[in-house]
């Protein structure tokens, strides 16, 4: 069986190591000047070269060559390490041997001299998985090891290493490898292996790898196995389930135009063609983010995209206000979480689209208030209107007693309005009469939004009609916004004993009403079972 590319092409000397110049320079100088520390910590994301550097370091400190440029990869020790048969390079899998016993064992053996090399190099990989006891057992040895020992700790999670360990090591942070360095190395390896790859495919692989050389080589390996003459961008996209920008643009177009049925159908088609729902979502979010960027800043320079793509995004960005775009992006990001929660990815995506459609169409929906069947609402009690009709003719001044009357009759007024316009009634619950003049009643709303809604022509007419009837003369309504007071007047609902839920509780479950407490806007009924 052949070795996979990432093992076969593991860098063998410092010069082959890419993207970690800061590490390489420091280590090279340390070796040249013979100032080698006894403990190193290599931290960084996957596939950036931690284990590789540890092995190169082991070779460099032990290399027998007189050459300045170590390691030579030719001498006895270098070849032994390359072939994995050197007894003085001890690689420990800390994730599998994570207990205190393993560390005790290590401490016992640390004292023995190296068999053939100058230094014994202990590489403790995945060191973040050691138990706290094991870490503590290591502390003394790590601080003052025998002169012939070098420790190299490697981990992807340096934050899980105790500070006492960190302070005893020289720490090197490995960075994600820039895409262009990955491309360079990939094309070198591809040419050595006789794999022919399109340059676009290479840069696609490099971007997919997100700065990890191992990821990039794994993907190249996978593509090579497909057995095509040449590895093309399309092939790479098909295997990874990646989606082209045109496709995403098409989706966004359907989305902003509100073509729900077409959108769902298109989504289905994409998935049948092999698009990966999660990736699709990610790409979509990225695309929308770019649109938002254009919308907000109009700054093209920050986007690394072809001109026509930017133009199209610009067109889209004009179609919806900024708030809507943000809302859509937020909805989609929540969907990404939902997918992790086990909802079928395609279903989750469909739902997100449907929800976006809803968000987009929400303003229109509010314009048509719900029509409620009149029989449902109680008729306004006749007595309520009687005193109003008998009210004395109005003087010019503000009428305090009429205001009081209006306040007293507020609940009945609401009930009367409810039979005409349910939504208006709901609005009026968050409002109170402020003053009554000859022909103008001022209503104070707690929220500007409610005021706006109540001022819509149709509602205003309804309101004026009801008030005119109550006060016995034509009335105009003026709406203002006022700060909310402590308690709002509540409207009587069904008496608690007749509320269907309470009724069942009493009849079927044997509950007993022991008290009724008023809470804002409704009743709160305390029940108690015998």
């Amino acid at each position: 069986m052949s070795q996979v590319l990432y093992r076969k092409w593991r860098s063998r000397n410092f010069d082959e190591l890419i993207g970690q110049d800061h590490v390489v320079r420091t280590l090279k100088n340390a070796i040249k000047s013979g100032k080698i520390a006894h403990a190193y910590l290599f931290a960084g994301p996957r596939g950036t070269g931690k284990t590789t550097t540890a092995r190169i370091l082991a070779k460099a400190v032990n290399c027998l060559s007189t050459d300045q440029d170590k390691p030579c990869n030719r001498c006895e020790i270098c070849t032994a390490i390359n072939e994995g048969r050197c007894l003085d390079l001890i690689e420990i899998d800390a994730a599998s041997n994570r207990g205190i016993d393993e560390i005790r064992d290590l401490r016992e053996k640390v004292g023995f001299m190296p068999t053939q090399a100058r230094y014994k190099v202990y590489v403790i990989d995945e060191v973040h998985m050691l138990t706290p006891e094991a870490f503590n057992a290591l502390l003394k040895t790590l601080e003052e090891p025998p002169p012939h020992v070098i420790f190299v700790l490697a981990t992807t999670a340096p934050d899980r290493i105790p500070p006492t360990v960190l302070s005893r090591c020289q720490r090197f942070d490995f960075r994600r490898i820039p895409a262009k360095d990955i491309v360079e190395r990939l094309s070198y390896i591809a040419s050595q292996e006789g794999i022919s790859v399109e340059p676009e495919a290479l840069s696609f692989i490099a971007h997919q790898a997100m700065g990890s050389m191992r990821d990039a080589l794994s993907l190249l390996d996978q593509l090579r196995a497909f057995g095509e003459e040449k590895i093309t961008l399309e092939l790479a996209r098909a295997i990874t389930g990646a989606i082209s920008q045109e496709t995403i643009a098409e989706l966004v177009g359907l989305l902003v135009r509100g073509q729900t049925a077409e959108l769902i159908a298109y989504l289905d088609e994409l998935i049948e063609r092999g698009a990966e729902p999660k990736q699709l979502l990610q790409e979509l979010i990225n695309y929308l983010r770019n649109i938002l960027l254009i919308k907000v800043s109009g700054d093209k320079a920050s986007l690394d995209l072809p001109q026509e793509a930017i133009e199209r995004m610009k067109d889209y960005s004009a179609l919806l206000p900024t708030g809507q775009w943000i809302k859509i992006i937020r909805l989609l990001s929540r969907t990404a979480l939902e997918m992790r929660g086990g909802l079928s990815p395609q279903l989750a995506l469909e739902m997100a689209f449907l929800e976006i459609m809803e968000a987009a169409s929400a303003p229109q929906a509010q314009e048509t208030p719900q029509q409620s069947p009149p029989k449902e609402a109680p008729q306004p009690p006749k007595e309520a209107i009687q005193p109003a009709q008998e009210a004395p003719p109005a003087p010019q001044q503000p009428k305090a007693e009429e205001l009081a009357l209006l306040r007293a009759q507020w609940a009945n007024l609401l009930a009367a309005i409810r039979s005409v316009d349910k939504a208006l009634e709901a609005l009026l619950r968050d409002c109170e009469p402020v003053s009554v003049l000859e022909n103008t009643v001022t209503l104070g709303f707690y929220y500007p939004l409610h005021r706006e809604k109540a001022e819509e022509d149709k509602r205003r007419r309804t309101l004026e009609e009801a008030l005119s009837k109550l006060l016995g003369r034509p009335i105009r309504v003026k709406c203002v916004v006022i700060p909310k007071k402590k308690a709002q007047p509540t409207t009587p609902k069904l008496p608690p004993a007749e509320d269907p839920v309470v009724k069942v509780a009493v009849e079927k479950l044997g509950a007993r009403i022991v008290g009724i407490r008023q809470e804002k806007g409704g009743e709160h009924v305390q029940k108690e079972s015998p």
Partner: protein
Amino acid sequence: MLSLNNWRAVCEVIGHEWVLKLLENAVRKGVLSHSYLFTGPDGVGKRTLALEFARYLCCRVSLPPCGSCRDCQEILGRTHPDLKLLEPENGSIKIEQIRELHREAFLAPHRSPYRIFIISDMDKATPEAANSLLKILEEPPLHSIFLLTATSPELLLPTIVSRCQVFNLRPVPESQIQEFLEKNWGVESYKANILARLSEGCPGKAIRFIQEEELFKRREEDLEAFFYILKSDTVARLEWAGEFGKDEERLKEMLNWWILAARDMLLILEGAREKVVNADCLGKLEATAVKLGKEKTRMGLKELRSILAALHRNANLRLALDVLMLKLPGFSQEV
């Protein structure tokens, strides 16, 4: 227990031709990797594919595998000495299981060229177990091959994913599932069509529906319940909820069906009738959808999803159900 005949039916890979082609090429050209990761939703065929790949590697008669030689048969029966199948024990893969794997990986294979380890549901591994797999997964003994499965690569350590060749299995087209059900399971075409739609591209789900008839029946009950709840008033709903019982898994299952039904209704209202999953109740779905209207259907769908999410976060079952009953829109006068 399934008979051997059924095993074969279960073990046939449906769809995923591109993966099989790629794997076959890799075997032919000798450019095998030592670790593969198959990801995709439950029942899409990850493990079946892994077993099939094991046959590609072990069958010495032909490529693609013959299916009748001793190696092929033993892999199907999971008794092959060079195949080891690791599965979650009591809900998770433990570090002890991986340690055992470490030992076995260094043993020479019995009669095949490889020793194959299938680790099923790697996403259910404990952090310790996952980490302890890292080193051996990167540089295993020469003859070992690891085949991992997981619902999604994001659920695994990035360090594990980066060591594997990742194959993201996609939903299998409905037509293919339908054909498979008709041919291998002798399901009549009408039912096969519905099962194929219900399976959401996962043949495994369709097979479960066939094997557990209960499951299919429960769906019909659940849909009935859904229609009943939508047209009932609060009192009747709460009464119904009171009789529901305390089975949380059952409730989640039911909610999933309800969500699917609500989605169907919404699709009908949006004019995408051919995408409806519960095609056997199309008439009823449509009638309900029209009565309920777009707004309320959307609201209902939202409520259903939020309750399901709450249940996944360990909400009290009784309360969740009652809240749903109170919040779910309907077309009874009261609600």
